[in-house]
């Protein structure tokens, strides 16, 4: 059974959700917590939160939207509870996209790490927006999820994009 074949409004089994949305949950946890052991803890807390919240899902929003919202909210409450701030890894050196690199996969991993690290440095309101855009949510979905008007979303996104660009291109 996949999430798509589940009856509308009826949540699929938790195992199916983990198969389909586990990577999404893991990425959201990574974008809030840099420390690997704390990230593992956060990922487990998100799984628990999804497990607990699942019976309240009523298909007013897509399951993916619902899970992303729960994951973001749990991540925010998790980072506020940390007694010490998680270590912020140094941003790797700038990657020149045009530079020839024989190890394509290694470069992609490095690029992903850089993107993740840069995202973690964004202010929370901008971080939320950029994560949802990178996860492939549509603008109306993001507007609804964050409860902000489309023009406010556009403005927040353009700021987030500018900040991300500065960080990724070595400006900061």
């Amino acid at each position, binding site marked *: 059974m996949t999430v798509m074949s589940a009856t509308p409004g009826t949540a699929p089994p938790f195992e199916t959700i983990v198969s389909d949305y586990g990577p999404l949950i893991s990425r959201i946890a990574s974008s809030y917590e840099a420390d690997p052991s704390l990230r593992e803890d956060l990922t487990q807390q998100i799984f628990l939160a999804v497990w607990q919240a699942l019976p309240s899902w009523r298909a007013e929003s897509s399951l993916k939207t619902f899970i992303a919202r729960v994951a973001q*909210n749990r991540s925010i409450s998790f980072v*506020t509870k940390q007694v010490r701030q998680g270590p912020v890894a140094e941003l790797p050196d700038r*990657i020149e996209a045009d530079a020839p690199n024989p190890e394509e996969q290694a470069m992609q991993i490095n690029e992903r790490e850089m993107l993740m690290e840069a995202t973690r440095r964004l202010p929370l309101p901008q971080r939320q927006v950029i994560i949802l855009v990178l996860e492939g949510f549509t603008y109306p979905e993001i507007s609804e999820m964050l409860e902000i008007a489309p023009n406010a979303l556009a403005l927040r996104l353009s700021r987030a994009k500018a900040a991300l660009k500065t960080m990724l291109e070595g400006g900061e």
Partner: protein
Amino acid sequence: MSDFDLDRLGDVWRQQPDPAEMERLQKSAAAVARRARLAQVTDIVVALAVAGVVIFLVASNPKPGTVLIGSAAILVLLFSNIRLRKVRRIELEQLTGGTEEMLDQSIARVETTLRHIRFSVIGFPVAAVLGALFGYASQGRRILDAAQDWPLRSLLMPLGIVVIVGVMVFAVRAVRRGRKELERLRAMREAYRRERESSNS
């Protein structure tokens, strides 16, 4: 990364984890679900067991006093269960609601918790002193004589002091943690407020 294209970055972002990582995630989630189901069952079993023991004790000694104490115990159990469910419902609403609303509610919750802890820090030693004074007022010298006797002097008093110090240390640490959490929550709330204001201007 000279071409700043969010679609391309999205592809980089959404790279699927390798099979080993996926398996680790599934195992982790399965363990979480197992623990959560177990906690649910334990909640019910513990509540039923406590209620059963109370009913058994009352039934085996059916006097007005035991019936009264038993009823009170059942009421306390019921009240704590209702309260626990209410807390869980609020937590659930926070998880599935808007972030700014969640931050507001979290700020209110931490402020309330800090107030309670501060009250306890002040109230606990005051209550201990008042208790001692009340004991002295009602028992006179007898309580002082009793304090000289074993086991009160050699066991209960040191134990009492350890408990009081322990509670105070715990409370002070909880206040520190609460303050830090509150600072972060307020900073996050402020970030949202600034973002909203700049969007409106």
